[in-house]
């Protein structure tokens, strides 16, 4: 039972309540830094670190934080983790840090992170809060990576900087420009909603058949 509970919290963030595809949160980094797969991964990892770290702390201290100042406390905790991520990236991978630029400090303002603290971490035990954060962060990473990979392949003819096509491939430059982010995201969201629609239709059919059968 306990194991299932954690698994449930994990998988809901990855798929059913995916922060990007289902909740449409965190759109700012989603559209801005996904012009290559490596940037998407770096942003995903930074968000993962911040989200899991803050959820752990918020959940651990949830009984000590007075609810009148909870949002300020969450922001202090999140901002601290973001600063740590910022300096670590700057020290370890300066080139990626340069590409991401202002979007690393902006993780503080990512509504996905504050949303999870307010909606989940501040109300549930630490173990579940961490599982929830891991699930959401992995879901966010998958979303970033799928967008980044599509845009890099179409816009640059490469994946993780490795050229995939011969020199005859004409890069679809618009895909790595901002409009490309909107186009790709639109198509992916369309697919997700179509999938959900089909699933609901299928479940309705099953329910209908059962009712007739019984």
């Amino acid at each position, binding site marked *: 039972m306990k194991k299932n509970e954690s698994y449930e919290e994990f998988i809901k963030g990855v798929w059913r309540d995916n922060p990007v595809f289902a909740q449409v949160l965190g759109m700012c980094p989603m559209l801005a830094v996904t*012009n290559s797969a490596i940037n998407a991964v770096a942003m995903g990892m930074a968000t993962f670190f911040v989200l899991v770290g803050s959820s752990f702390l918020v959940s651990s201290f*949830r*009984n*000590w*934080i*007075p*609810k*009148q*100042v909870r949002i*300020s*406390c969450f922001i*202090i*905790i999140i*901002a*601290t983790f973001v*600063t*740590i991520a910022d*300096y*670590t990236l*700057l*020290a*370890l991978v*300066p080139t990626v840090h*340069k590409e991401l*630029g202002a979007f690393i400090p902006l993780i503080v303002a990512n509504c996905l992170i504050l949303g999870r603290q307010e909606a989940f971490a501040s*109300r549930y035990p630490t173990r579940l809060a961490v599982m929830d954060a891991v699930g959401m962060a992995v879901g966010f990473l998958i979303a970033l990576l799928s967008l980044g990979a599509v845009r890099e392949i179409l*816009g*640059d003819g490469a994946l993780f900087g490795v050229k995939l096509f011969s020199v005859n491939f004409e*890069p679809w*430059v618009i895909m*790595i*420009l901002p409009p490309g982010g909107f186009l790709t995201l639109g198509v992916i969201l369309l697919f997700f909603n179509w999938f959900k629609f089909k699933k609901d239709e299928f479940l309705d059919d099953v329910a209908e058949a059962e009712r007739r059968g019984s």
Partner: protein
Amino acid sequence: MTTDTNKQAAPPSSIRLVLTLAIAGLISGIAIIGIYESTLPTITANKARELREAVFKVLPGVTRMQALVNRNGELVAVEAPDKDEPVIYGGYDETREFVGYAMPAAGPGFQDTIAILYGYKPDEKLVVGMEVLESRETPGLGDKIYKDAVWVAGFNALSVEPEIVAVKKGTKSSANEIDAITGATISSKAVVRIINEAHTAWSSNLPPPGSEPTIQETETANTEAGQ
């Protein structure tokens, strides 16, 4: 959740609220100082290495460098230049002979400031290399100013007399002309303008060819140890 609500049924005193935030701020401050202090050496080393690599790239054959600043109309070598002081770098070869200057320059591009470093040989009045240090030019278009190998190679022997001119691709006819990049005309013209402006600003401050400051022993030892 129910236990929480019971505990906080009566609003907590202001002192408790202030104290909570103060403690959170304090811990956060300590954590940030910690990470800043522990990453600072790596970050400074990275920046120094990046600069060294850029200088060696724009000045072929250079193995030593030192920072030079203009003090009272004279170019002098310094260990650590003041913060807002314009600096250029002198490049020297194995035999400690002066090769050329690596000049940092910056100016407006299409999106934001473009910062470049270019190698300049004063005796031949030639630009011998160009490297873009910072730019936010449009990916796929303006970013060709550092991704287009042909364009970058165009700076390997470019005369600055009377000034560099960016011309339409394929129409380069004299030593001071460079083929602009198709699809990145504004960015390539910006790079050329930045170099021209920096050259005009510095040319009166450079000593006549042959009397450049010699490389100092300490500087060499320092940079090599730091490699």
